[in-house]
């Protein structure tokens, strides 16, 4: 059962991923990305990583993709116009490189590999996956957890700084660069 499910989910994942990068319409791409994330969440569940599966749905498929869609809508983007020799060349090279990477990875792994040590039962602790993760997060992973908070803070601040409306320092978009001989900033601003 599980393998069948896995194959199905994997197929959805691969196909939707492909469509993300193939489809001309960014909105469609985004929706396929949501699909891909959801199928990934399914795979996580199959791998008995319930917590991660849930978070995947909530954070990724939910929050992140909503943000994407919001931006796409906000920018009111239509179909990507993709034509011309340069793009064709780039596309060809891109696909070839992607194939090369996969083949190389496969060849490398085909040489026989091993994973690290197995800690029997480590993944199925008493009290369930989520509780165990919670405990770990606040004990062993306290330090990265704290860093994460800073990361989020920075992202927040950064997003606001960059995307906030026209502040005093933002010239009217898409204003051409002022002429070279523009007057120097007012003296009091130069301190």
């Amino acid at each position, binding site marked *: 059962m599980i393998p069948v499910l896995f194959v199905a989910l994997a197929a959805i994942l691969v196909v939707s991923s492909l469509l993300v990068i193939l489809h001309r319409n960014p909105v469609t791409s985004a929706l396929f990305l949501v699909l891909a994330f959801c199928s990934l969440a399914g795979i996580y569940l199959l791998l008995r990583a319930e917590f991660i599966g849930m978070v995947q749905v909530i954070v990724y498929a939910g929050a992140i993709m909503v943000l994407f869609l919001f931006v796409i809508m906000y920018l009111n983007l239509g179909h990507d116009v993709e034509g011309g020799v340069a793009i064709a060349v*780039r596309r060809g*090279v*891109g696909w070839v*490189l992607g194939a*090369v*990477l996969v083949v*190389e*990875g496969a*060849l*490398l792994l085909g040489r026989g590999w091993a994973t690290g040590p197995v800690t029997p039962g480590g993944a199925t602790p008493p009290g369930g996956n989520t509780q165990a993760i919670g405990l770990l997060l606040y004990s062993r992973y306290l330090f990265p957890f704290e860093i994460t908070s800073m990361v989020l803070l920075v992202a927040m601040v950064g997003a606001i700084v960059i995307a906030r409306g026209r502040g005093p320092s933002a010239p009217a978009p898409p204003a051409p660069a002022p002429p070279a001989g523009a007057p120097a900033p007012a003296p009091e601003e130069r301190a």
Partner: protein
Amino acid sequence: MTGLWIIPALPLAAVALNLLLGDRLGRRGVAWLACGSVGLAFAVAVRAVFNLAQLPADQRVLTETVATWMRVGDFTADFGFLLDPLSAVMALVVTGVGFLIHVYSTGYMGHDASYRRFFLYLNLFMFAMLTLVLADNFLLLFVGWEGVGLCSYLLIGFWYQRPAAAEAGKKAFVVNRIGDFGFLLGMFTLFAFGGTLNFERLFAAAPHVFPYAGPVITFAALALFVGATGKSAQIPLYVWLPDAMEGPTPVSALIHAATMVTAGVYMVARCHVLFQLAPVALETVAVIGAATALFAATIGLAQNDIKRVLAYSTVSQLGYMFMACGVGAFGAGIFHLMTHAFFKALLFLGAGSVIHALSDEQDLRRMGGLAWRLPWTHATMLIATLAIAGIPPFAGFFSKDEILAGAFASGHRGVWLAGVVGAVITAFYMFRLYILCFRGPSRLSHEAEHHLHESPPSMIAPLVALAGLAIAGGWIGLPMQPGGHLLERWLAPVFEGGAGAAARPALARGTEIALMVISVAAGLIGILVAFRVYLDRPTTATALATRFAGLRRLLEHKYWIDEVYDAAIVRPFAALAGWFWRFWDEKIVDGTVNGVATTFEGVSAVLRLFQTGFVGTYALFFTIGVAALLLHFLRH
């Protein structure tokens, strides 16, 4: 202390004073300083020679080491002076003739703006020349050797505003340098194998160090002789001397007739020990000398510039001296050197007097009939001409006869014959000069006629003095005395040490007389023909000239030797130099250097093309990088 150093120091002091006091000296002061220093040097030299003569014959060597010049490892060179009979003769000739010419110059250069500079150079020359003759080692000799070359350069180019003079000065220096190249190599060889450059020590050691006729000594002797050919204007390096006539005439007299050009002869004579160890070299000296004597004489036949005729005659006479040395008659060579100094200086000074009188006219074709209008000059010139033609009892006869006798005696019949023929030609062209200048109708330009005047006493007095010497100077070499003549005996201590000295065969008295007759006859024939051609039937000259037009042109153009040298050496070198610079240096060597820079800039420009500004490109290269790294590990 023998005080030998004072002799060269005197003119040097004059140079220094001249430089220090500058124009404050005034003309008279300059003249007094210059002549006085040389006169004093002469006096000191006479005293020194007198002292030398006091010594027993086999100890007649005065040496004095003033200071060590340089001492590096086993190499030492001193400021050391040596007075032996040979250098005594030279010192006396140099200071004596030099003094006369200094006196003469006070008159001759009387109106020149650079009066002071002239005497500065002249005194400097005296210093160098005296250093040359009094040096007790090769290196100090070389100092004088190059020093006289320098002064020669400066004095030839004295009238520097004349391009020809400047050119001639440079030519003289460069050709001399070629000779010096040989001299240097000779010195190196001698030191490398002989271990010293000191004359006495080297000559004493030479027979033990250098195997007779061995390659080393042959090389050394030949190399030294190359130096001599440069300084003494022998084939193939004689070309500078005729051009050197661009200098003021007293200079020609002093440097390019009496003293400097004989330095080569002196050097060969000084090194007779070495040359006698190298028969091949000695033979070369003889052959080159004979060839030059004959060759230069033929050129002298067709020259119209009075000084150039004299210059070629100098070359020719120097050839005689080398001829003497080459056949082992070193004493005869020195003898001729001395007499030649007298009569050739006289000839030049006389010519100078003529030129002076004719307002700087030097072309024989525009002279003539001056005999009675410049009586003193004429008389003295005639004496000198007779002397060079080898007519007894004038000085030249004795010395030239001795050379020819020496050549004959040593079995060099070819050399002897060349000498005789040369004597005929010499007599002919010298009298051609005499006739064209002093006899026959006047061909003077109106201008020259107008200013014509006999020279001032300061010029005439040296002429007279030299005329006296040109007559009597040879008498110390009166032949057929037991044990050699006076000069021979005087020089004997120097020359008898050599390996070849003993081998010199004595001539039977009859042969000697016969040779003498031949020699005199040669001179007379030349004179008579000259009179016949140029005075009695002036048309003959033109007739001959048209008849042998090709030969005449050949001689007039000096066998085109200058042109040959120019085409064979000067031009190829200049072309090579230009090619080195324009092509090799700029294109290849520097081109490579700049090419490296250009290559880098080209690569830079290409690399910049990759930096397209597109994120896609950057990601592409990123991915290619990753793929390449993976590939690297796949391969291993």
